[in-house]
C-alpha cells in the first residue's frame, strides 16, 4: 500500500515538471490596410488599468475612464469588463496572457512596454486604428515612447514629467525668472537665489530623491549625456551607452557639488524622498523636485504651491528630464483584436480632456495640449511645457539593467565615496555586463 502511495505522489511531482514545458501558441493577426474593419457586436472585452489600489475608496480617475468606456460600449453594442486592478500587472501578463486569462487591453506607463514585448504578449497596433496621419497630431515624445522596432505597440493618452514644486510662502516665483536675454533660468542663478533664502527651522532650501536615477537623468541630459543612443527607425541601441561620456561625468560632479560636501552646499548627502516630502508637506521646504503624483497630498496639506520646469545649464536649451507616457496596449492573445483596437483608439483619444479635468493628466494630442484650458492653469501649463521638452524613458527591456547600478553609483558620488569618473566607468561596466548576461552571454 505504501509503495502505491509513494508512486502516486511521485507521479504528481513528475507531472508538475511537465507544466513548465508546455508552450501555448496563439495566432497573431495583423491588418495592414488603413480602412477600419467591420466590428463584431455583443463581445465582452476586459481592461486592466493601474489607477488606485484596492484600499482607496474613491477613485475619480477610474470613474472618468469608465464613463468613456461606456460611451464606446454603447456605440458599438459591446460590453466591457473592468475589474479592480491587479498588482504587477505587466509581469502577470507574461504568464496570464498565453493561458487566456489575460485582459484584452492593458494600461501602463510606456517603460513597461519593453518587457511585455520581450515576453511576446503584445500585439502591434493595427495601422487602421492609429494611422500615420493621426500619429502626426500627437506630440513626438508620446509617439516615440510607444514605438518599438519601428511599430507602435500601444496608444498613448497622457504624459507626465517631473520638475520643481515650490512653496509660495517661502520662495517667490521671481526666483525662477531667467536673466534678461535668456530663454530659460539657469542652475547657477537659481542656486544663488536659493542660498539667499532664510528657511524656517534652518532646514535645506532644496530637496529631492537624489540617488534615484529617474530624477538624476535631467542633469545628465542637460550636459549632453544619454542612456541608450536612439537610432531613427530602429529604436534604442542597447550597445551604445552615453552614461560615461564627458558630459555625464560633469553631471555627476555637479550633483556632488550640490551637497554640503561640495561647492554649493544646498543639502546634505543623506537627503532622500521621504525626508524631502516630509519637509515640503510640513511647509518647511521651499523647493521640492518631484512629479505631479504628489499634487493630491500638497492640496490635502493646504499648501500654496507653484510649478516651474527645471533650470537649464546654459540658458538656451530647456531641461530634459525623463517623461513617462501613459498608454493602453493590446494583449496578443485577445480573441477580439479588431474590437480591442477600436476600444483602444476611442479610449485614448477621448479620455484625454476628461482626465485632465479630473486629475490634471497632461494630454498628448498637440492641439489639446495647446488649448487655453491647459495653458491657463499655472501648474498644469508649466507641467505641459516641461513635458514637451522632456525625453521619454527608453522603452527597451535592457533599461531595467540601468536603474540600480546608476542609482548606486550616483549615490556614492553624492556621498563622496567615489569620484565622478570612477563611478561612471564602474557603473557602465556593470550595466554592460548585466545586459550581456541577460542575453545569454
Amino acid at each position, binding site marked *: 500500500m505504501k509503495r502505491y502511495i509513494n508512486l502516486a505522489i511521485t507521479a*504528481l511531482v513528475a507531472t508538475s515538471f511537465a507544466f513548465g514545458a508546455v*508552450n501555448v501558441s496563439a495566432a497573431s493577426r495583423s491588418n495592414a490596410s488603413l480602412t477600419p474593419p467591420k466590428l463584431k457586436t455583443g463581445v465582452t472585452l476586459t481592461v486592466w488599468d493601474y489607477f488606485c489600489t484596492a484600499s482607496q475608496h474613491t477613485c475619480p480617475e477610474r470613474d472618468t475612464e469608465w464613463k468613456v468606456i461606456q460611451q464606446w460600449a454603447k456605440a458599438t453594442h459591446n460590453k466591457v469588463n473592468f475589474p479592480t486592478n491587479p498588482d504587477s500587472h505587466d509581469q502577470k501578463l507574461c504568464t496570464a496572457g498565453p493561458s487566456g486569462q489575460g485582459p484584452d487591453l492593458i494600461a501602463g506607463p510606456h517603460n513597461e512596454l519593453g518587457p511585455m514585448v520581450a515576453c511576446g504578449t503584445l500585439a502591434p497596433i493595427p495601422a487602421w486604428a492609429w494611422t500615420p496621419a493621426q500619429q502626426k497630431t500627437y506630440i513626438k515624445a508620446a509617439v516615440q515612447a510607444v514605438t518599438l522596432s519601428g511599430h507602435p505597440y500601444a496608444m498613448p493618452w497622457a504624459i507626465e514629467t517631473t520638475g520643481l514644486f515650490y512653496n509660495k510662502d517661502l520662495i517667490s516665483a521671481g526666483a525662477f525668472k531667467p536673466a534678461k536675454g535668456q530663454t530659460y533660468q539657469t542652475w547657477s542663478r537659481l542656486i544663488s537665489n536659493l542660498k539667499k533664502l532664510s528657511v524656517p527651522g534652518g532646514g535645506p532650501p532644496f530637496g529631492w530623491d537624489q540617488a534615484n536615477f529617474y530624477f538624476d537623468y535631467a542633469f545628465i541630459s542637460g550636459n549632453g549625456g544619454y542612456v541608450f543612443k536612439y537610432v531613427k527607425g530602429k529604436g534604442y541601441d542597447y550597445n551604445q551607452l552615453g552614461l560615461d561620456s564627458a558630459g555625464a561625468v560633469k553631471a555627476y560632479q555637479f550633483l556632488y557639488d550640490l551637497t554640503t560636501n561640495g561647492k554649493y552646499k544646498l543639502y546634505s548627502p543623506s537627503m532622500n524622498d521621504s*525626508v524631502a516630502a516630509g*519637509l515640503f508637506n510640513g511647509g518647511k521646504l521651499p523647493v521640492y523636485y518631484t512629479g505631479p503624483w504628489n499634487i493630491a497630498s500638497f492640496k490635502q496639506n493646504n499648501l500654496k504651491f507653484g510649478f516651474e520646469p527645471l533650470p537649464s545649464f546654459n540658458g538656451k536649451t530647456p531641461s530634459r528630464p525623463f517623461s513617462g507616457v501613459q498608454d493602453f496596449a493590446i494583449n496578443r492573445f485577445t480573441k477580439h483584436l479588431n474590437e480591442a483596437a477600436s476600444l483602444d483608439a476611442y479610449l485614448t483619444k477621448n479620455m484625454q480632456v476628461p482626465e485632465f479635468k479630473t486629475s490634471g493628466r497632461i494630454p498628448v494630442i498637440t492641439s489639446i495640449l495647446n488649448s487655453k484650458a491647459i495653458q491657463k492653469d499655472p501648474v498644469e501649463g508649466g507641467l505641459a511645457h516641461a513635458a514637451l521638452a522632456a525625453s521619454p524613458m527608453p522603452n527597451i527591456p535592457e533599461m531595467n539593467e540601468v536603474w540600480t547600478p546608476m542609482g548606486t*553609483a550616483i549615490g556614492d558620488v553624492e556621498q563622496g565615496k*567615489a569620484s565622478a569618473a570612477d563611478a561612471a566607468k*564602474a*557603473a557602465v561596466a556593470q550595466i554592460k555586463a548585466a545586459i550581456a*548576461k541577460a542575453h*545569454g552571454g
Partner: protein
Amino acid sequence: MATVSQSVPMKKGRPGLGETLYAYGFITPAIAAMVVASFLPIAFTVYVSFTDWSLYNNALINGFHFVGFANFKTILDSLQGELLGVVIWTVAFASIATSVNFIVGLFLAFLLNNPNMPERNVYRTVLILPWAVPGAVMTLAWSGILNTDYGPLNLVLGNIHLGPFSPGHIQWLTDPNWARFSVLMVTAWFGYPFMMTACLGALQSIPTELSEAALVDGAGVFTRFWRITFPLLRSATLPLIISTFAYNLNNFGAVYLLTAGGPTPIGSNAGATDILPTYTYTLAYSHYLYGLACAYSIVIFFFIGTLSAAQMKWSRAFEEVDR
C-alpha cells in the same frame, strides 16, 4: 470492505485494507492542499533552476532552454567572489542577532523575575511593546529615524558634547560598518521581547528550592545562576534559539526595509548588509533572471537546512530526555 456497524475489536498487528483506505480518505484534502500549495511550486522551482528562464529567454519568443547545472555553476563561481562575503555576513548576522536577542531577553527576564517588585507587570508591558508593533511599518520608520542628517536620533545625539567628539554625525545607514550595526540593532530591538517572554516563562518554572538550597550551601549569585538556573533554562530555550537562528538567516524584512541591502560598493551587486535572501531578490527582480533566482533559492534551502540540522544534532535539543 470492513463495515463499522458494531464496535470493532482492537486488532493486533497491521490494520486491514478497508481501514487503511478509510484513513487515507480522511487525509486526502490536507494532502491535496499541501501538494498544490507547497509541493508543486517547489517542484516547479527545481525544474526552472535547471533552465535559463529570464525576461529574454521565455517560453513565447526565444523559448527557454534546459541548461543543466549552468546556473549552479554560476553560483559556485560567484562563491569565489561577492557571494562569499554575503554568505559570511548572513551567518554572522544570524549568530550575532540571535545571541544579542537571547542575552538581552534573558537579562531582562532575570530582572523581571523578582517577586519583590510589585510594578514588574508595568515594566513587562512596556518592554513587550516592540513585539506588538507591525514589523514592516516600524522598520521603515527606523530607516527614517536613522537618517544621518535629518533623522531624530542624530539630532538628539548632536546635543551631546564629549569634548571634541560629538556623536551627532554617525552615518547609520550609509557607512558599511555602521549599517551592519544598525541592522543588528534594529533586529535586536524587534527580537528581544520574544526571548524575554520565553525566558521569563522558563525562569518561573524553575523551583526556588534549588536556589535556596544552593544559597544555604554558600553559593554566590553567579555560581547559582551558572550551575543551577542556566542548565535548567537550556532545555526550555535551546529549541527557541535554534529556530530564531534559522529565522534570522532568512530575515528578509529586517534587512531589506532598512537598508535595501545596504551601501553597495561601486561595481558590485552585493551590498554591505545583503543577506542571501535580499541578494537573491535583487538579482531576480532587478534583472529578471528567474532561472538563476530559483537556483539560488535551492542553494539557500540546502544551506540553511544543513546548518539547522547540524545545530539540532549537536545541541541534542530535540532528543527525548529521561529526567
